[in-house]
């Protein structure tokens, strides 16, 4: 298969900057000091460090041992403890197992028995430990900015409560985020009983409101849904991103990857179709991807419905079913595939799509027999459902002066409320405002009272997870800054008494578990983190309306074009704007977590910023280039920000990522990126038309990691199709790879197909071969077929291995420190819909490691178990090793990045891993600390190490289970089985480095009906041809 892979537009066009990035191991100026240090200062620094070193060297400082006065039972110094808890996120809840060292939570993993995580996690979950130790969290209750105590607030609330009780709370309002929690729901009902006329609003900046509305439209009930991608063989994602931005992405990823794996090992492989405006991670995983503006999704769905369910009620009104610019054969093939897989198909619509689309999707899934199989529904229970209209009603009441007291229970409405509601001016008319928040954020800095909010690792609570499973939020540490949880504050408001959250939560659980033996049952729940069997019953919805007719009506009307509200024909011209939740910061709530800011976006590979994304074709027609500064005018508001050209975006679409541009996030997140909420209105929270981009005369530097460490077009990623794999004709050739000698698990074969070596020529080794036939021999496989490129491994590694954050400027210089990176390769026409392959690249642990040969001080050497180890203390920083590494996985600590780490953040560090200093090379260690711990544990237990005892951090976190790690001398180990797969190949095997980490080639499962040779005009099939509207106005850099 001859594909060309490319990593950026600069590469395709072979621009000088790409050549420069390619040819230099360390980008130009990588050895320079950060700006602001002159040569003179440098000499001063040198002098100071010498004299300090001299002084310190006289006698090492006396170190103290400070034991407990009375040791807590079961806490043994040096042995981490693990507790089950739950991280609530919107109406989802991630079941977790948190590692705690001497009472401080350090590492977060998924709870294997919890359906939302299945033992895995994602970047947000991993990074939430930083949220706990965030030095910018607020430290006390404040009144008009002045420090107060919680007792002061309790007193003040007592007076307010009395006043409001008089009129039933008519002038009292609560604004909350959505949640799903029995305790909170109970408190809310108590609060409503106390203040019957209370005004309650629930607002999520990024919400699934339109899906709820759609299901209400279709079934008349408030339903949640649970996708079972593991059961699906054909999946259609309509502007949806179930694999990344969806709150349930972990279980979706696992299910999807299971389906891919099954196919690669002989079973049925699922097939994913994605139709979308932006380039999402789900789109990147799709076997077939169609670029389509978000506003065209409804017509597309109508066209599909007309083919799939022509006899369904209301289908007649759909018309013949054509979508401008879309090859009807594409829809035909999709419909055929869905019909052929009744009961194992699945259609998912994205949260930003309007209710009518969701209703129609529900109808189609039911019609295709998928309901109850690949998608199941259950009643929403114990939940506050998001509703923009409730916020709008609240704001108008505030504007009218009807609200005396506003309580903001979490959330940050001043930052993320729709721009058209003008929440700020409304709040100014409320005499008493109270905000519960993690920091003095945009909202808390404008309210009368601020209450520091306890982190979920500090609070008691509960939640209903996916499927309605009851999960418990258990604290691992007392509130560091005296924060109060949502339960505490609602408890005070509802009960009028300041009671511990623990009591309140237990009160809720008493009727659930029963009074008899409550304590032991409760302890069991705490131990498990969930109550087994508490899932809500599945609902088989009956369709009350005619969703397809509704869809037709919606298309006929204008509401589809905006996602919710009305839109005039005039605004349909111009570009379409799509609002995306940030995959890491979500709606901005995680903006102060450095790991997430520095985590590259999976598709754009940008860090620390959120430029407007446009397709290369669109950019060309607008005269825009990467990093150009533009003004975006939309709906009477404007926003200035840079642009980034993303191949595969739908032409005529500009995507804005939400969650950036916070002004009060803290030292990490404030002033990073651009606030897209400034132009987002309540009527079109998802997408809208009528956007103009005007090029302004400046550029803005963006830090992307995409060109760093390129591999010069060699067969780095390998892929095949399922048909090819089955026919064995063009199996990615087994390559003489990782293992020499008699090590089992080595796939023997001839390196011909990707052939650096013709025939059976064996690579010639310059070195004396090691045998590695003693003890454990560690190895890893990464299944590119399962990998979804979500970057969870990167954050997990960062958390486990104390990897520092370096900042935007340093990333631009190629100094990012991530021990594992996820490479993203495009293939195909950049102006069309290029395909994407992801490839995580940690250290390969080569048996003949090129880095070791060139180190002048033996700072990187091999150990007896096949690990390429890095001895930090020996390293003198020549960086020869990194120069000689063909995989570019070594990271150099250019500065003392950890030096300025605030003390509190040091609590998040893993005590089992050295914190590296400046001037030292570092890289993936295969989590040697975990290997050692497992070996010692096995030794103490007097048994042999078993397969699965050692899990690397990346492996444990991977939602797709794409990584296997284990002993390659153990023939029964999973890693040996993986390496025996014919798809196994070593990266750059022709160099004869014998990497221990090998890859399993990716397999695509294209629909034969959509083969480009049968579909002669594949290219015109996608992309709009009627895009004249936005081409027409071109001139002077302004397009409308």
């Amino acid at each position, binding site marked *: 298969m001859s594909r060309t892979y490319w990593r950026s537009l600069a590469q395709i066009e072979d621009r000088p900057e790409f050549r420069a990035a390619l040819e230099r191991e360390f980008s130009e100026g990588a050895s320079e000091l950060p700006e602001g240090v002159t040569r003179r200062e440098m000499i001063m620094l040198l002098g100071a460090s010498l004299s300090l070193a001299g002084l310190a060297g006289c006698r090492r400082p006396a170190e*103290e*041992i400070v*034991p407990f006065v009375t040791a807590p039972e079961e806490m043994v*110094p*040096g042995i981490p403890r693990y507790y089950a808890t739950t991280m609530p996120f919107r109406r989802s809840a991630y079941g977790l197992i948190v590692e705690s060292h001497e009472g401080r939570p350090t590492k977060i993993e998924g709870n294997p028995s919890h359906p939302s995580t299945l033992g895995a996690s994602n970047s947000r979950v991993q990074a939430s430990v930083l949220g706990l130790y965030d030095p910018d969290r607020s430290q006390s209750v404040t009144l008009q900015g002045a420090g107060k105590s919680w007792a002061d607030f309790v007193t003040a609330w007592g007076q307010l409560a009395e006043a409001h009780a008089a009129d039933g709370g008519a002038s009292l309002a609560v604004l909350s985020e959505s949640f799903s929690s029995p305790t909170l729901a109970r408190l809310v009902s108590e609060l409503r009983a106390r203040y019957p006329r209370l005004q309650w609003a629930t607002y999520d900046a990024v919400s699934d409101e339109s899906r709820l509305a759609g299901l209400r439209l279709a079934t008349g009930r408030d339903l949640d849904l649970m996708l079972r991608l593991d059961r699906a063989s054909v999946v259609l994602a309509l502007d949806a991103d179930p694999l990344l931005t969806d709150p349930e992405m972990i279980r979706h990823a696992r299910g999807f990857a299971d389906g891919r794996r099954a196919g690669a090992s002989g079973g049925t492989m699922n097939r994913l179709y994605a139709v979308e405006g932006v380039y999402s991670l789900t789109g990147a995983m799709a076997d077939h991807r169609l670029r389509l503006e978000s506003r065209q999704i409804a017509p597309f769905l109508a066209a599909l419905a007309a083919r799939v369910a022509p006899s369904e009620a209301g289908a007649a009104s759909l018309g013949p079913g054509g979508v401008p610019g879309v090859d009807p054969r594409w829809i035909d093939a999709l419909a055929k595939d869905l019909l052929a897989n009744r009961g194992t198909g699945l259609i998912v619509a994205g949260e930003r799509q309007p209710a009518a689309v969701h209703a129609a999707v529900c109808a189609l899934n039911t019609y295709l027999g998928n309901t109850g199989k690949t998608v199941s529904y259950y009643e929403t229970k114990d939940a506050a459902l998001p509703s923009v209209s409730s916020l709008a009603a609240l704001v108008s009441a505030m504007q009218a002066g009807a609200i005396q007291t506003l309580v903001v229970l979490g959330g940050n409405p001043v930052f993320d409320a729709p721009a058209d509601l003008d929440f700020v001016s409304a709040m100014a008319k409320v005499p008493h405002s109270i905000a519960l928040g993690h920091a003095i954020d945009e909202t808390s800095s404008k309210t009368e009272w601020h209450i520091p909010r306890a982190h979920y690792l500090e609070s008691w609570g509960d939640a209903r997870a996916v499927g309605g499973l009851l999960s418990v939020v258990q604290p691992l540490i007392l509130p560091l800054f005296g924060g109060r949880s949502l339960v505490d504050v609602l408890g005070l408001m509802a009960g009028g008494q300041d009671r511990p959250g623990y009591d309140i939560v237990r009160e809720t659980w008493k009727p659930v578990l029963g009074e008899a033996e409550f304590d032991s049952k409760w302890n069991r729940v705490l131990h498990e983190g969930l109550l087994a069997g508490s899932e809500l019953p599945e609902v088989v919805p009956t369709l009350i309306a005619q969703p397809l007719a509704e869809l037709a009506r919606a298309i006929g009307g204008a509401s589809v074009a905006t996602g919710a509200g009305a839109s005039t024909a005039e605004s349909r011209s111009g570009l379409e704007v799509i609002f995306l939740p940030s995959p890491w910061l979500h709606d901005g709530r995680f903006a102060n977590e450095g790991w997430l800011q520095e985590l590259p976006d999976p598709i754009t590979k940008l860090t620390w910023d959120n430029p407007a994304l446009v397709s290369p074709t669109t950019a060309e027609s607008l005269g825009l280039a990467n990093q150009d500064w533009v003004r975006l005018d939309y709906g009477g508001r404007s926003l200035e920000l840079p642009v980034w050209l993303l191949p595969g975006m739908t032409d005529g679409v500009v995507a804005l990522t939400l969650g950036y541009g916070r002004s009060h996030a803290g030292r990490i997140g404030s002033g990073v990126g651009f606030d897209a909420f400034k132009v987002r209105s309540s009527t079109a929270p998802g997408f809208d038309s009528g956007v103009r981009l005007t090029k302004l005369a400046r550029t803005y530097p963006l830090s992307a990691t995409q060109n760093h460490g390129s591999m010069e077009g060699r067969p780095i990623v390998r892929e095949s199709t399922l048909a090819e794999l089955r026919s064995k004709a063009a199996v990615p050739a087994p390559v003489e790879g990782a293992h020499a000698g008699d090590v089992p698990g080595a796939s023997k074969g001839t390196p011909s197909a990707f052939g650096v070596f013709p025939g059976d020529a064996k690579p010639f080794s310059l070195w004396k071969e090691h045998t590695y036939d003693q003890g454990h021999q560690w190895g890893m496989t990464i299944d590119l077929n399962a990998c979804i490129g979500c970057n969870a491994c990167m954050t997990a590694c960062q958390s486990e291995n104390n990897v520092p954050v370096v900042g935007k400027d340093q990333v631009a210089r190629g100094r990012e420190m991530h021990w594992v990176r996820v490479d993203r390769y495009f293939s195909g026409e950049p102006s069309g819909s290029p395909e994407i392959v992801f490839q995580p690249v940690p250290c390969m642990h080569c048996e003949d490691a090129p880095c070791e040969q060139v180190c002048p001080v033996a700072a990187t050497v091999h150990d007896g*178990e096949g690990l390429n*180890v890095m001895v930090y203390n020996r390293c003198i920083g020549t960086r020869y090793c990194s120069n000689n590494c063909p995989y570019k996985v070594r990271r150099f600590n250019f500065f003392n990045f950890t030096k300025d780490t605030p003390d509190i953040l040091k609590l998040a560090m893993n005590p089992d891993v050295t914190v590296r200093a400046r001037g030292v090379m570092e890289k993936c260690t295969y989590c040697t600390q975990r290997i050692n711990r497992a070996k010692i544990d096995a*030794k103490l237990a007097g048994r042999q190490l078993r397969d699965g005892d050692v899990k690397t951090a990346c492996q444990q976190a991977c939602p797709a289970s794409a990584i296997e790690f284990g002993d390659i001398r153990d023939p029964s180990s999973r890693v040996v089985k993986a390496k025996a797969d014919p798809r196994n190949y070593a990266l750059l095997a022709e160099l004869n480095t014998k990497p221990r980490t090998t890859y399993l080639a990716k397999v695509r499962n294209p629909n034969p009906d959509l083969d480009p040779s049968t579909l002669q005009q594949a290219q015109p099939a996608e992309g709009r041809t009627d895009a004249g509207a936005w081409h027409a106005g071109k001139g002077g850099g302004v397009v409308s």
Partner: protein
Amino acid sequence: MAQIFPPWWNKLPLVTAIAGALGPIVVIAGIWYYFSPWYTDVGYSPVQPVAYSHKLHVGELGLDCRYCHASVEISPVANVPPTKTCMNCHQTVKRDSERLAPIRASAESGRPMRWIRVHNLPDYAYFAHNVHVAAGIGCVTCHGRIDEMETVTQMTPLSMSWCLDCHRNPDPNRRPVSQVTNMRWTPPRNASTLAEELERERPVTPPTDCSGCHR
């Protein structure tokens, strides 16, 4: 007019010559020694906040090490006991001792004792007590005859080469696990048979790679 250069200046060339000859030798010798593994903290014996005598408690009263250092078998860290452990006995024994005043103060106030660490490995060396105990390495091997010490003193170099000496040939330092805390244990005459027996019972493979101790 007084002379600018007093007479002893005449010796200057000689002094300079001697200093010039000896200076480099001193510098080289200094670096040679202080930067080498021979320069260790053996003999380090800091003054502790309470002059706790291991000689009295272990040597004479016969307390087992694990009464206080309870986690040594299960944890990498052999804990220093909480104040409560001292008070277990000293709420009845020597209740009014002047020397125990800081302990009583700690127990009353809830403020922890601040002991000075004697055996201090660098932060990048990850030593685990538990696995060494399980392998039958006696406390004495590294800590010396604690039962004879009034003040705990570092007796062994705790340098990397010293660690490796044993890791390369652990047999001379192994003993039955039951005898690990025994300060007076001596190897039997047929030491080689014992080593074989121990190896059969619980084979050890002490790591000699960097990754064994550095992470």
